[in-house]
């Protein structure tokens, strides 16, 4: 049996103020499958993303991503995990002092990918996400939609096996919404896994996807 991409077991977490964020939260995502997690604002969706990338650590239970435990002081493991995750929204953002093109190719630079391959992937991503005109712009000059598109483009270039997408559909116009949905569907079909965190009610049309809702700090 393949190792699950994400395995959360009886996760408990309290906020800094002592309030319960998660209790006995369980989530398992097999390789190639995706999960859509819904919940109202403040229900802990972004916190869930933070647990998966090692920005926060569970008070109880265990968090495993790609079979590696996420715990404090496991910096190398966390770095390895982060390199295999493409992120959009929530804790993820663009680097304000890099251009859109540089932001998109950054995961490739970090991964020491050849310059020629970088250029090729960049061109493809810029075309796919209609960012050719914005390639030389800096993030503060982008609209919210362009910013989301640039993050999608960045998450697409390195083809990481897991994508974490926090509120991907918020504030999108109909045309962009359709394109994002198309893109996410393609990702779901490509064998990559996704964790989509959203407060919108998502259309149940993603293939290979399970749907969850955060209710009182646990997944239903």
């Amino acid at each position, binding site marked *: 049996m393949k190792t699950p991409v994400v395995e959360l077991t009886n996760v408990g977490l309290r906020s800094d103020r002592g309030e319960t964020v998660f209790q006995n939260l369980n989530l398992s995502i097999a390789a190639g499958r995706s999960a859509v997690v819904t919940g109202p604002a403040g229900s802990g969706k972004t916190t869930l993303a933070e647990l998966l990338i090692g920005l926060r650590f569970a008070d109880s239970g265990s968090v495993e991503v790609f079979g590696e435990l996420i715990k404090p002081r496991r910096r190398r493991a966390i*770095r*390895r995990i982060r390199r*295999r995750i493409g992120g959009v929204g929530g804790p*993820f953002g663009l680097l*304000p002092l890099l251009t859109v093109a540089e932001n998109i190719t950054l*995961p490739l630079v970090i991964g*020491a990918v050849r*310059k020629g391959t970088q250029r090729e992937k960049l061109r493809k991503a810029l075309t796919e996400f209609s960012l050719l005109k914005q390639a030389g712009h800096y993030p503060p000059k982008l609209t919210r939609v362009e910013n989301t598109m640039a993050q999608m483009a960045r998450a697409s270039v390195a083809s990481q096996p897991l994508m974490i997408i926090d509120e991907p559909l918020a504030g999108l116009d109909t045309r962009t919404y359709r394109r994002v949905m198309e893109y996410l569907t393609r990702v779901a079909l490509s064998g990559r896994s996704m964790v989509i965190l959203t407060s919108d009610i998502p259309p149940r049309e993603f293939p290979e996807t399970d749907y969850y809702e955060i209710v009182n700090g646990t997944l239903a």
Partner: protein
Amino acid sequence: MRITHIVKEMARNLYRNFGTALGSLLSLTLLFLLFDLFWVAAGTSQTFYLSFISDLQMDVFVTEETSDTALVALEDSVRQTPGVSDITYVSKQQARLELSGQVGTDLLVGYDSLNPLPRSFILTFQPEYLNLNEIRRIEARLGALNGVSEVNYSRRWLEKVEKTRAIILQVGLGLGVIILLAALLSSANNIRLMARARAVGFRQMLLLGAGRFFIAAPFILEGFFMAATAAALGWVIIYYGQQQVTFSQFEIVVPLRDHIIAFCLACGVIGMFSGYLGIRSELKA
């Protein structure tokens, strides 16, 4: 690939924070210039000291009772004393001539058979023995020889010079350490300022799986570049100054080019460390 990124990021840092970078470069240049000045002063005073001390002579006076035969044996013993490079015998007659040369008149006219001036040897020394400890050792050894009545040299002058040199060395070392520490902290603080402005970016890079070294490298490289450039600028100023100023009594001694290059590289290493110190606190996310 990563090296291109690191160099590009460093250049971008310097360009975006031009004022801070320039201020840092100038303050480092001033600090290193101060260090260079001490170095030049130390080198110059050392050369000055060596030129003085190379003229150091020691008079070894022979007792009246020493016979001519014993004098030959004594001369051999003196010559074989370690550190002695040259020995000149001064007879009573030569001493009288010298005295009259110094005084301007022969004070012993009519007392030819009663010349009280002692016979002596005038010694010079090998360069490696030209320091107070070695000279004292030679003095003790010669003083213990049969037939030697007195050993004389400019002992007090040598003691003063040695003491002054020791003080200059201690003060110079202390100041050198303070200057290099100031350079380290000044550079680290400037880099910290530049890094703090980019904290959001660092967090994002860490989330993308970038290693700490990948993020820190441009700043470490920047530290090296700034410190090495500042050190080189300091020496350019010194060279310019040396060409403009000449002293008739002594020559300004500038260290060898290889030493200067090594110094600039060492400053660069200090700069790298300051870069690491500057960025370290920003990489805790």
